[in-house]
């Protein structure tokens, strides 16, 4: 069963083309990593998939349903959640209220209980009444993930969850992401950080300058030093 199929996706801001005709698929329950240097168009791609950015062309199907023309709230309600790069939390909301707000996205599906989120991130339970704006960076990231999970999604898009986090927190996050995956949720992880990418993903797509530069199993990517070539170019010349 294919969870997400993206065909010839193009994203542009005015004249700036950020994503050139990208195609990729994710099987249900699978974990795919989208790698690439800064500015490669990874964030633009995932934001276009969930409708936060307009698509110039291309098609996005979610479990066989064409969601290309839907707006973000409708897409999210279908069960496709995004944890955005800048977290996009509501600073004046408490942790609990943030999670309650996100149950809207469950729509007609059963939302997850807040307990299950607190089970995944016990620290959030301790901070239940605290305002989201006053949390530490790592806690904010956990809250952002929790917020996406409450809606009980079938596919979770994670956009650079590691950015700006200390390594200790990162390990907690990796564990959590693994658990989420084990519960049957498909994952699309956008990362620059190879360490996280490797511990979460099976397959890997590399983007460079908005186009798909390479794809294959995660292990191959590291072995063949593909990443280095894409990141740093051919510097030997």
């Amino acid at each position, binding site marked *: 069963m294919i969870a997400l199929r993206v065909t010839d996706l193009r994203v542009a801001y005015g004249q700036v083309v950020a994503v050139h005709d990208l195609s990729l698929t994710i099987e249900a329950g699978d974990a795919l990593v989208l790698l690439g240097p800064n500015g490669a168009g990874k964030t633009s791609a995932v934001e276009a998939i969930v409708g*936060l950015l307009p698509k110039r062309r291309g098609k996005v199907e979610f479990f066989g349903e064409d969601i290309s023309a839907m707006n973000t709230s409708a897409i999210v309600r279908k069960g496709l959640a995004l944890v955005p790069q800048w*977290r996009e*939390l*509501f*600073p004046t909301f408490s942790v609990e209220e943030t999670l309650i707000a*996100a149950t809207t996205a469950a729509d007609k599906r059963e939302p997850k209980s807040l307990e299950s989120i607190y089970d995944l991130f016990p620290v959030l339970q301790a901070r239940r009444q605290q*305002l989201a*704006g006053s949390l530490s960076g790592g806690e904010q990231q956990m809250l952002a993930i929790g917020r996406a999970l409450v809606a009980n999604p079938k596919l979770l898009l994670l956009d650079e969850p590691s950015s700006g986090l200390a390594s200790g927190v990162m390990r907690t996050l990796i564990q959590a992401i693994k658990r989420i995956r084990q519960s049957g949720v498909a994952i699309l992880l956008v990362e620059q950080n190879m360490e996280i990418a490797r511990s979460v993903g099976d397959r890997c797509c590399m983007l460079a300058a908005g186009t798909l530069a390479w794809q294959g199993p995660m292990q191959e990517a590291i072995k063949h030093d593909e990443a280095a070539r894409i990141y740093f170019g051919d510097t030997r010349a």
Partner: protein
Amino acid sequence: MLAELGNILIAGIKFGAIYALAALGLVVIHKATKTVNFAHGAFAMLGAFGSFLIVVHWQGPYWLAYLLVPILIGIIAALIEFLILRPLRRADMFTVVIATVFLGIALGEAFRLIYNTELLAVPGMFVGAPFVVSRVFVTKETLWVIAGALVTALACVMLFHHGKIGRGMRAMASNVRGAQLCGYSVDRVYMFAWFLGGALAGLTGVFVAPITGVSVELSIAVITAGFVAGVIGGFDSLRGAILGGLLLGVVESLAAAYVSSAMKNCVSFILLFFVLMWRPEGLFPERVARRV
């Protein structure tokens, strides 16, 4: 002297409660949609007109006006959001301000054309002798306006801060992208915010109709007072709008009594000016969490 002060304060609070309601509608729309609705006064005028139609023209019961008018004006506001503001969503603030300013003028003129008269009088909901407490006079009407307007305003704050639909608006106000990711639709939330703002304006109109009558000038009076009250309170704070409205009403009353009756408007503008210059975030801004 004390009784005199008491009478002045009560009048100030009565008008302040109305200002608070007007400011609240403006702030709700601004908070959720980042648009300042300069046509808000015209909405209130239409609300007062609706109340005239129901109570005077069709001789209907007063509670019907309180029930129907907010819904109707809310629907009109939502329609205007759909027809005019939605196409301008990507336009800059400048364009939107101009569009709503002239929308207000257009609505006022349309009313004038329909009902060519200086003023339509609407009777109060209550009649009867005022209560007197040591030479301070309070009518039932005044009590009703103060209590009614403040209770509705507080109810609205509660809805905004604790209700499900209010949560959507607050989420949208806080972070548009985040709110969408929580499943809130921009179109729906914006339309609802305009509905709620419009309904508050309509309600302002119903409350104010017996106090001021229905006239085109009402529209300018409401938008000016509402805006000044909003800025004084902190334009993004609902509680601030209520406090700002009350403060404005009281300050205006005191100034008219103890400074000069001809300078009443001057005083409120000077207050606005000082707030804008020295505390642009308002006197009662929403508490803001650090570290975002």
